[in-house]
Protein backbone atom coordinates (compact mmCIF):
# COMPACT_ATOMS: atom_id res chain seq x y z
CA UNK A 1 0.00 0.00 0.00
CA UNK A 2 1.57 3.27 -1.16
CA UNK A 3 1.63 6.56 0.75
CA UNK A 4 -0.75 8.34 -1.68
CA UNK A 5 -3.42 5.65 -1.13
CA UNK A 6 -3.20 6.27 2.60
CA UNK A 7 -3.91 10.00 2.39
CA UNK A 8 -6.52 10.89 4.97
CA UNK A 9 -6.21 7.55 6.75
CA UNK A 10 -2.67 7.65 8.10
CA UNK A 11 -3.60 9.69 11.16
CA UNK A 12 -6.26 7.19 12.22
CA UNK A 13 -3.84 4.30 11.64
CA UNK A 14 -1.20 5.99 13.79
CA UNK A 15 -3.75 6.59 16.55
CA UNK A 16 -4.78 2.92 16.36
CA UNK A 17 -1.13 1.82 16.59
CA UNK A 18 -0.82 3.79 19.83
CA UNK A 19 -4.01 2.41 21.34
CA UNK A 20 -2.16 -0.40 23.14
CA UNK A 21 0.13 1.97 25.04
CA UNK A 22 3.08 4.32 24.58
CA UNK A 23 5.37 3.62 21.61
CA UNK A 24 8.35 5.31 19.96
CA UNK A 25 8.35 6.12 16.24
CA UNK A 26 10.01 2.96 14.99
CA UNK A 27 7.76 0.76 17.15
CA UNK A 28 4.72 2.57 15.70
CA UNK A 29 5.70 1.75 12.12
CA UNK A 30 6.51 -1.83 13.09
CA UNK A 31 3.09 -2.16 14.73
CA UNK A 32 1.48 -0.81 11.54
CA UNK A 33 3.44 -3.26 9.38
CA UNK A 34 2.38 -6.15 11.60
CA UNK A 35 -1.26 -5.13 11.74
CA UNK A 36 -1.38 -4.75 7.94
CA UNK A 37 0.42 -8.04 7.29
CA UNK A 38 3.44 -6.22 5.84
CA UNK A 39 1.37 -4.54 3.10
CA UNK A 40 2.14 -1.05 4.34
CA UNK A 41 4.92 0.40 2.18
CA UNK A 42 5.65 3.74 3.75
CA UNK A 43 9.13 5.30 4.21
CA UNK A 44 9.79 5.11 7.96
CA UNK A 45 10.97 8.72 8.05
CA UNK A 46 7.55 10.04 7.01
CA UNK A 47 5.96 8.72 10.21
CA UNK A 48 7.81 11.20 12.41
CA UNK A 49 6.37 14.45 10.97
CA UNK A 50 2.91 12.81 11.11
CA UNK A 51 3.42 12.02 14.80
CA UNK A 52 4.44 15.65 15.45
CA UNK A 53 1.31 16.83 13.64
CA UNK A 54 -0.88 14.63 15.83
CA UNK A 55 0.95 15.90 18.89
CA UNK A 56 0.35 19.52 17.87
CA UNK A 57 -3.32 18.68 17.42
CA UNK A 58 -3.40 17.39 21.01
CA UNK A 59 -4.32 13.85 19.96
CA UNK A 60 -1.10 12.29 21.25
CA UNK A 61 1.46 13.41 23.83
CA UNK A 62 5.22 12.90 23.47
CA UNK A 63 7.72 12.37 26.28
CA UNK A 64 11.49 11.88 26.23
CA UNK A 65 13.30 9.02 27.92
CA UNK A 66 16.84 7.64 27.70
CA UNK A 67 17.28 4.11 26.34
CA UNK A 68 20.71 2.58 25.83
CA UNK A 69 22.33 6.02 26.12
CA UNK A 70 20.09 7.44 23.38
CA UNK A 71 17.28 9.92 23.84
CA UNK A 72 13.99 8.41 22.74
CA UNK A 73 10.64 10.09 22.20
CA UNK A 74 7.60 8.04 23.05
CA UNK A 75 4.03 8.92 22.22
CA UNK A 76 0.76 7.99 23.84
CA UNK A 77 -2.87 8.73 23.10
CA UNK A 78 -4.47 11.63 24.93
CA UNK A 79 -8.17 11.47 25.91
CA UNK A 80 -8.88 13.65 22.84
CA UNK A 81 -6.92 11.18 20.70
CA UNK A 82 -8.86 8.27 22.14
CA UNK A 83 -12.11 10.04 21.28
CA UNK A 84 -10.85 10.95 17.79
CA UNK A 85 -9.91 7.31 17.16
CA UNK A 86 -13.40 6.12 18.10
CA UNK A 87 -14.91 8.70 15.75
CA UNK A 88 -12.55 7.77 12.90
CA UNK A 89 -13.40 4.06 13.36
CA UNK A 90 -17.13 4.73 13.18
CA UNK A 91 -16.67 6.96 10.11
CA UNK A 92 -14.53 4.31 8.41
CA UNK A 93 -17.09 1.55 9.05
CA UNK A 94 -19.86 3.68 7.51
CA UNK A 95 -17.68 4.75 4.58
CA UNK A 96 -16.36 1.27 3.77
CA UNK A 97 -19.87 -0.26 4.05
CA UNK A 98 -21.18 2.38 1.64
CA UNK A 99 -18.36 1.90 -0.91
CA UNK A 100 -18.60 -1.91 -0.65
CA UNK A 101 -22.34 -1.75 -1.27
CA UNK A 102 -21.80 0.54 -4.28
CA UNK A 103 -19.01 -1.55 -5.80
CA UNK A 104 -20.28 -5.04 -5.08
CA UNK A 105 -24.02 -4.53 -4.93
CA UNK A 106 -26.32 -5.47 -2.11
CA UNK A 107 -27.94 -3.35 0.53
CA UNK A 108 -26.05 -0.59 2.28
CA UNK A 109 -26.39 -1.02 6.05
CA UNK A 110 -27.89 1.91 7.91
CA UNK A 111 -25.34 3.93 9.88
CA UNK A 112 -25.33 3.17 13.60
Amino acid sequence: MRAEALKGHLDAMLLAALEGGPQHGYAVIEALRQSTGGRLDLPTGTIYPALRRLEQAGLIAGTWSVVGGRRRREYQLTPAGDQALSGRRADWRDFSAMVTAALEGGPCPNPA
Partner: protein
Amino acid sequence: MPEPRLISSYLDVLAAQLPASIVEELADGLTETHRSYLRQGLAPDLAARAAVAEFGEPEMIVAGFARVNPARRAARRLLGVGPVVGACWLAALVTSRAWAVPLPARMLAGLTLAAVIALLATSALGTHYRLAARTGAAGFLGVIALDASLIVGVAFAGAPLTWVLALAMAASAARLCYAARALRPALAG
Protein backbone atom coordinates in the same frame (compact mmCIF):
# COMPACT_ATOMS: atom_id res chain seq x y z
CA MET B 1 28.70 -0.49 18.34
CA PRO B 2 30.07 2.35 16.17
CA GLU B 3 27.57 4.02 13.85
CA PRO B 4 28.20 3.16 10.18
CA ARG B 5 29.42 6.10 8.12
CA LEU B 6 26.36 5.98 5.85
CA ILE B 7 24.05 6.49 8.83
CA SER B 8 26.11 9.33 10.32
CA SER B 9 26.25 11.07 6.89
CA TYR B 10 22.49 10.68 6.53
CA LEU B 11 21.94 12.20 9.99
CA ASP B 12 24.37 15.03 9.17
CA VAL B 13 22.20 15.99 6.18
CA LEU B 14 19.14 16.09 8.44
CA ALA B 15 20.99 17.96 11.22
CA ALA B 16 21.92 20.71 8.77
CA GLN B 17 18.23 21.49 8.23
CA LEU B 18 16.28 20.37 11.31
CA PRO B 19 16.39 21.18 15.05
CA ALA B 20 18.50 18.94 17.30
CA SER B 21 15.50 17.44 19.13
CA ILE B 22 13.96 16.22 15.85
CA VAL B 23 17.30 14.81 14.66
CA GLU B 24 17.70 12.95 17.99
CA GLU B 25 14.34 11.30 17.48
CA LEU B 26 15.17 10.37 13.89
CA ALA B 27 18.59 9.05 14.97
CA ASP B 28 16.92 6.74 17.49
CA GLY B 29 14.51 5.46 14.83
CA LEU B 30 17.29 4.98 12.28
CA THR B 31 19.42 3.10 14.82
CA GLU B 32 16.48 0.81 15.61
CA THR B 33 15.91 0.22 11.88
CA HIS B 34 19.59 -0.60 11.41
CA ARG B 35 19.53 -3.02 14.34
CA SER B 36 16.49 -4.80 12.99
CA TYR B 37 18.39 -5.48 9.72
CA LEU B 38 21.41 -6.66 11.71
CA ARG B 39 19.15 -9.09 13.58
CA GLN B 40 17.97 -10.40 10.22
CA GLY B 41 21.60 -11.32 9.48
CA LEU B 42 22.75 -8.51 7.18
CA ALA B 43 26.35 -7.26 7.38
CA PRO B 44 26.66 -3.83 9.11
CA ASP B 45 27.18 -1.85 5.88
CA LEU B 46 24.37 -3.63 4.05
CA ALA B 47 22.12 -3.18 7.09
CA ALA B 48 22.95 0.55 7.09
CA ARG B 49 22.12 0.81 3.40
CA ALA B 50 18.82 -0.99 3.92
CA ALA B 51 17.96 1.17 6.95
CA VAL B 52 18.65 4.42 5.09
CA ALA B 53 16.62 3.21 2.09
CA GLU B 54 13.72 2.25 4.36
CA PHE B 55 13.81 5.64 6.09
CA GLY B 56 13.39 7.55 2.81
CA GLU B 57 15.02 10.53 1.13
CA PRO B 58 16.21 13.19 3.62
CA GLU B 59 14.55 15.91 1.49
CA MET B 60 11.19 14.19 1.89
CA ILE B 61 11.60 14.00 5.68
CA VAL B 62 12.71 17.65 5.89
CA ALA B 63 9.72 18.71 3.76
CA GLY B 64 7.42 16.70 6.05
CA PHE B 65 8.71 18.49 9.13
CA ALA B 66 8.56 21.86 7.36
CA ARG B 67 4.83 21.31 6.84
CA VAL B 68 4.28 20.77 10.59
CA ASN B 69 6.64 23.55 11.68
CA PRO B 70 4.78 25.37 14.49
CA ALA B 71 6.34 28.71 13.45
CA ARG B 72 4.92 28.32 9.94
CA ARG B 73 1.46 27.55 11.28
CA ALA B 74 1.54 30.49 13.71
CA ALA B 75 2.74 32.84 10.93
CA ARG B 76 -0.21 31.76 8.76
CA ARG B 77 -2.66 32.42 11.58
CA LEU B 78 -1.17 35.85 12.30
CA LEU B 79 -1.37 36.75 8.61
CA GLY B 80 -4.98 35.59 8.63
CA VAL B 81 -6.04 37.69 11.61
CA GLY B 82 -3.95 40.71 10.54
CA PRO B 83 -6.66 42.35 8.37
CA VAL B 84 -9.24 41.89 11.16
CA VAL B 85 -7.04 43.57 13.77
CA GLY B 86 -6.10 46.25 11.23
CA ALA B 87 -9.77 46.95 10.47
CA CYS B 88 -10.47 47.29 14.21
CA TRP B 89 -7.70 49.88 14.55
CA LEU B 90 -8.76 51.74 11.43
CA ALA B 91 -12.30 52.01 12.80
CA ALA B 92 -10.95 53.06 16.21
CA LEU B 93 -8.68 55.76 14.75
CA VAL B 94 -11.45 57.13 12.52
CA THR B 95 -14.08 57.24 15.28
CA SER B 96 -11.71 58.69 17.90
CA ARG B 97 -10.18 61.15 15.39
CA ALA B 98 -6.71 60.03 16.43
CA TRP B 99 -5.14 60.81 13.07
CA ALA B 100 -3.00 63.56 14.57
CA VAL B 101 -0.07 61.18 15.06
CA PRO B 102 3.22 62.79 13.87
CA LEU B 103 4.26 61.83 10.33
CA PRO B 104 7.59 60.16 11.33
CA ALA B 105 5.71 57.91 13.80
CA ARG B 106 3.18 56.97 11.14
CA MET B 107 5.96 56.22 8.65
CA LEU B 108 7.85 54.12 11.22
CA ALA B 109 4.69 52.16 12.02
CA GLY B 110 3.99 51.61 8.32
CA LEU B 111 7.52 50.40 7.59
CA THR B 112 7.47 48.10 10.63
CA LEU B 113 4.13 46.68 9.54
CA ALA B 114 5.44 46.03 6.01
CA ALA B 115 8.55 44.31 7.41
CA VAL B 116 6.45 42.17 9.78
CA ILE B 117 4.14 41.10 6.95
CA ALA B 118 7.16 40.19 4.77
CA LEU B 119 8.73 38.16 7.59
CA LEU B 120 5.49 36.32 8.41
CA ALA B 121 4.84 35.61 4.72
CA THR B 122 8.38 34.20 4.32
CA SER B 123 7.78 31.94 7.32
CA ALA B 124 4.27 30.93 6.24
CA LEU B 125 5.37 29.94 2.74
CA GLY B 126 8.80 28.57 3.68
CA THR B 127 9.78 25.00 2.94
CA HIS B 128 13.09 25.34 4.78
CA TYR B 129 12.49 24.51 8.45
CA ARG B 130 15.13 26.77 10.01
CA LEU B 131 14.43 29.74 7.74
CA ALA B 132 10.70 29.46 8.49
CA ALA B 133 11.45 29.31 12.23
CA ARG B 134 13.83 32.30 12.18
CA THR B 135 11.74 34.56 9.98
CA GLY B 136 8.71 33.51 12.02
CA ALA B 137 10.46 34.43 15.29
CA ALA B 138 11.45 37.85 13.87
CA GLY B 139 7.88 38.37 12.63
CA PHE B 140 6.41 37.42 16.03
CA LEU B 141 8.74 39.93 17.72
CA GLY B 142 7.57 42.55 15.24
CA VAL B 143 3.91 41.77 16.01
CA ILE B 144 4.61 42.04 19.75
CA ALA B 145 6.39 45.40 19.25
CA LEU B 146 3.62 46.76 17.01
CA ASP B 147 0.74 45.72 19.25
CA ALA B 148 2.51 46.84 22.43
CA SER B 149 3.24 50.24 20.81
CA LEU B 150 -0.39 50.64 19.75
CA ILE B 151 -1.79 49.77 23.18
CA VAL B 152 0.75 51.89 25.12
CA GLY B 153 0.50 54.74 22.59
CA VAL B 154 -3.29 54.96 22.93
CA ALA B 155 -3.06 54.74 26.72
CA PHE B 156 -0.57 57.64 26.84
CA ALA B 157 -2.40 59.72 24.24
CA GLY B 158 -5.37 59.92 26.58
CA ALA B 159 -7.89 59.37 23.79
CA PRO B 160 -11.47 58.85 25.04
CA LEU B 161 -12.12 55.13 25.44
CA THR B 162 -14.88 54.18 23.03
CA TRP B 163 -16.10 50.62 22.55
CA VAL B 164 -14.43 50.54 19.12
CA LEU B 165 -11.10 51.54 20.65
CA ALA B 166 -11.54 49.00 23.45
CA LEU B 167 -12.25 46.32 20.84
CA ALA B 168 -9.11 47.25 18.87
CA MET B 169 -7.00 47.19 22.04
CA ALA B 170 -8.43 43.81 23.04
CA ALA B 171 -7.74 42.42 19.54
CA SER B 172 -4.15 43.67 19.72
CA ALA B 173 -3.70 42.26 23.24
CA ALA B 174 -4.97 38.83 22.11
CA ARG B 175 -2.68 38.88 19.06
CA LEU B 176 0.26 39.97 21.21
CA CYS B 177 -0.33 37.02 23.59
CA TYR B 178 -0.55 34.59 20.68
CA ALA B 179 2.68 35.91 19.10
CA ALA B 180 4.46 35.71 22.47
CA ARG B 181 3.35 32.10 22.90
CA ALA B 182 4.50 31.21 19.37
CA LEU B 183 7.90 32.86 19.91
CA ARG B 184 9.45 30.21 22.18
CA PRO B 185 9.05 27.17 19.90
CA ALA B 186 10.14 29.31 16.94
CA LEU B 187 13.34 30.34 18.74
CA ALA B 188 14.00 26.68 19.60
CA GLY B 189 13.80 25.78 15.89
